[in-house]
């Protein structure tokens, strides 16, 4: 019947639009990810290729502290940018080996309630990853956000500047106290000191809105992160970050990675003009097109 046929056509058109939107959302995510991995690959090649400088002993500053200034590649850390835990491949996500070195099962020691929240995020809210909206990565994620970054050691500070999300961390070395707890910052409030040759950074005052990865591992404002950057030689840092937050963890947990210098001649950090508040992922994945099956919230 004509009316049925018209209805069928409308339905077909709708189905085909759904397919197109679903495809578009996958393509968008794939583009993001391939962009990420190409940059990471480029950075890796930079470290190993023509710019490779043989590692020597740890350099020293006039005051005897290690000189760790220079350009660095973000560590792969078992695929931490995708998932800090070991995980199977999913839409737009490779399988991950995980970056957690404690506890031994390589899983975040969530409380039962926190584990349920994480599962809810995975099931319905992956598009809400703050990085997808161009918000700063937060700590520790900023270190393994897959773009180049740089350490500077001006008087009285260690400063880290990142291509990813054009973020920076200003870390005073003067032992000043943390900001009051009601001040919340996406990159947290970092305080640094040297413990022998190890740069220790204590970070509090984060927003609690940032995630650890693209796999829904979330945080709260009471997160306390202690990072240790230890130079192994002139080209390599050992990095550890220990997370403590009684609100959602049953015990502290630690991720570790080796971080290598990028000695490519004339390398510089470029401008990453990700526009804060970016909504593309939500638009692409709205309603039926959402590969994670969730509904986009109206903001």
């Amino acid at each position, binding site marked *: 019947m004509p009316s049925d046929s018209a209805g069928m056509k409308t339905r077909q058109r709708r189905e085909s639009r759904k397919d197109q939107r679903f495809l578009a959302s996958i393509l968008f995510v794939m583009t993001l990810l391939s962009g990420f991995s190409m940059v990471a690959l480029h950075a890796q090649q930079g470290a190993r290729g023509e710019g490779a400088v043989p590692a020597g002993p740890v350099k020293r500053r006039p005051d005897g502290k290690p000189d760790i200034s220079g350009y660095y590649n973000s560590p792969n850390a078992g695929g931490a940018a995708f998932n800090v835990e070991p995980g199977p491949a999913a839409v737009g996500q490779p399988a991950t080996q995980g970056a957690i070195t404690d506890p031994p099962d390589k899983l975040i020691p969530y409380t039962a309630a926190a584990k349920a929240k994480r599962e809810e995020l995975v099931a319905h809210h992956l598009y809400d990853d703050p990085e997808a909206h161009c918000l700063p990565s937060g700590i520790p994620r900023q270190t393994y956000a897959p773009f180049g970054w740089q350490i500077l050691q001006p008087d009285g500070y260690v400063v880290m500047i990142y291509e990813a999300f054009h973020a920076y961390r200003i870390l005073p070395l003067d032992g000043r106290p943390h*900001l009051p707890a009601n001040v919340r910052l996406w990159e947290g409030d970092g305080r640094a000191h040297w413990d022998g040759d190890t740069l220790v950074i204590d970070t509090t005052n984060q927003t609690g809105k940032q995630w650890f990865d693209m796999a829904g591992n979330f945080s709260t404002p009471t997160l306390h992160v202690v990072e240790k950057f230890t130079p192994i030689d002139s080209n390599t840092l050992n990095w550890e970050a220990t997370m403590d937050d009684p609100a959602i963890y049953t015990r502290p947990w630690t991720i570790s990675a080796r971080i290598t210098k990028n000695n490519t001649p004339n390398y510089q950090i*470029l401008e990453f003009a990700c*526009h804060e508040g970016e909504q593309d992922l939500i638009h692409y994945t709205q309603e039926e097109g959402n590969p994670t099956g969730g509904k986009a919230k109206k903001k």
Partner: protein
Amino acid sequence: MKRMISFLVAISLTLGFTSAIFKSAQTYKPPRTSEGLPDLQGIWEAHNMADADIQKFLVGGGTLPYTPEAAKKKAENARQAKKADPLAQCFMAGVPRTMYLHFPFQIFEGTGYALITSEYAHTFRYIKMDGRPILDGSEFWMGDSRGHWDGDTLVIETSGFTDRTWFDSSGNFHSGSLHVTERISRAAADVLTYEATIEDPKTFSKPFTIRMTMNRHTEKNFQIREHECYAF
């Protein structure tokens, strides 16, 4: 009338103070960093209305030397400013605007670089001072900068801009051919003298320079926080 007189007194005091600052700029000798560089480090902020209209800060006074075509666009920008100002959409501020926004910025120095971090939208400017060239022809919101020391003055040359930033909230604008030369020096312990010379033959019939002072934040433990424009 009394108010008028006190207003005039205030103005003349301010002018006197400003000219005293510019005079002392020639005599003040900044301390050195641990690496022996003129020390401009610290957290600074412009407490003025340059972000409302840079024209008031034009060296030699007068009006900005727009080409006739560009003057029309500036008038149109001014009409649409409330919505069309790139900052209304949280875009990066560009150069020189990032320097006189009402947000603090911090200067760091080291051999081969200077770094300027702004609280606004956590933007930073890494200024190469190691002979590497400007990536001209690229399009960056904040441009690509190269610097050198002229005595105790930090001179920064920046180009490689998009044409999408403005100089202020009144719609003063530029093209992608913008080249900015900034001269930053210390007029006193807690005062910076800031100059920016704007060259953009596609927009202006001749170069022009704006000049102002900036003040140090001396509050104990003052630090740059974050102005997450969208998500604050």
